């Protein structure tokens, strides 16, 4: 042990290890969500996306640029959500219940993401794109 150089002790053994990764991805997804959520809210507020009707909602989702943005929004939003829920659970839930809650949250986020992205793709493929997008 006494022959070890300080660098050897420091590498990969710091208290943080990969701890900063969670923090950093939470910031990256936050930055990504700024334009993505603004676009979605803008689409609803301007009436471009009329969610009240089944046909008009599908028509909106099916447009190529909308589908791409919706997939990006789904992924970024659920990733950000999962990271946020993880922090809350780690702060307030303890013991074995913490592990179970964290696993359940991760599974639920992945399931919601898969369901949403699958839906966007299926709607896009089942609707013939119009001349204008």
């Amino acid at each position, binding site marked *: 042990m006494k022959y070890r150089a300080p660098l050897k002790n420091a590498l990969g053994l710091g208290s943080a290890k990969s701890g900063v990764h969670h923090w950093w991805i939470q*910031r990256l997804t*936050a*930055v990504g*969500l*700024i334009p993505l*959520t603004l676009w979605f*809210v803008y689409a*609803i*507020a301007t*009436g471009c996306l009329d*969610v*009240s009707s*089944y046909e008009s*909602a*599908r028509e909106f*989702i099916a447009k190529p640029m909308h589908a791409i943005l*919706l997939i990006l929004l*789904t992924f970024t*939003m*659920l990733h950000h*959500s999962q990271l*946020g*829920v993880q922090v*809350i659970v780690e*702060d307030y839930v*303890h013991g074995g219940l913490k592990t179970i809650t964290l696993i359940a949250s991760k599974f*639920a986020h992945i399931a*919601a*993401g898969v*369901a*949403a992205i*699958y*839906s*966007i793709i*299926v*709607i896009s493929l089942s609707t013939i794109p119009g001349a204008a997008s």
Partner: protein
Amino acid sequence: MANHDRPLSPHLSVYSWQVSNGLSILHRMTGFVLFTGAFLFALWLTAAVIGPETYDLIMGILCSWFGQLVLFGYTFCFYYHFCNGIRHLGWDIGLGFGKDTAVKTGILVVIVSSLLTLGTWAILLGGAA
């Protein structure tokens, strides 16, 4: 061995309420609400692929007065978390850390997000009328 009796963070009960910690916990609460909103978003897309009956069932709930109230709440949570999130990103790059500045930007965030919520619903309800 770990001492299981030691206090765990966050120590909510030991602080007196101020603008900074009040808005911080509001950021967390709105974030948690938006987590359920993200699942509602996924449900909306999934309903649109399942079929018109499922879609209309969910829209019927969302268009009821209760649904509209919930969506109004989501709108505020979104705008607050959005504006305060930008405030947080500013801190991350070292901007606006001063005590007075942080209080002022905090109050600004509450005012702006409230106005955006009311403005958005004015447009939505105005368009429907």
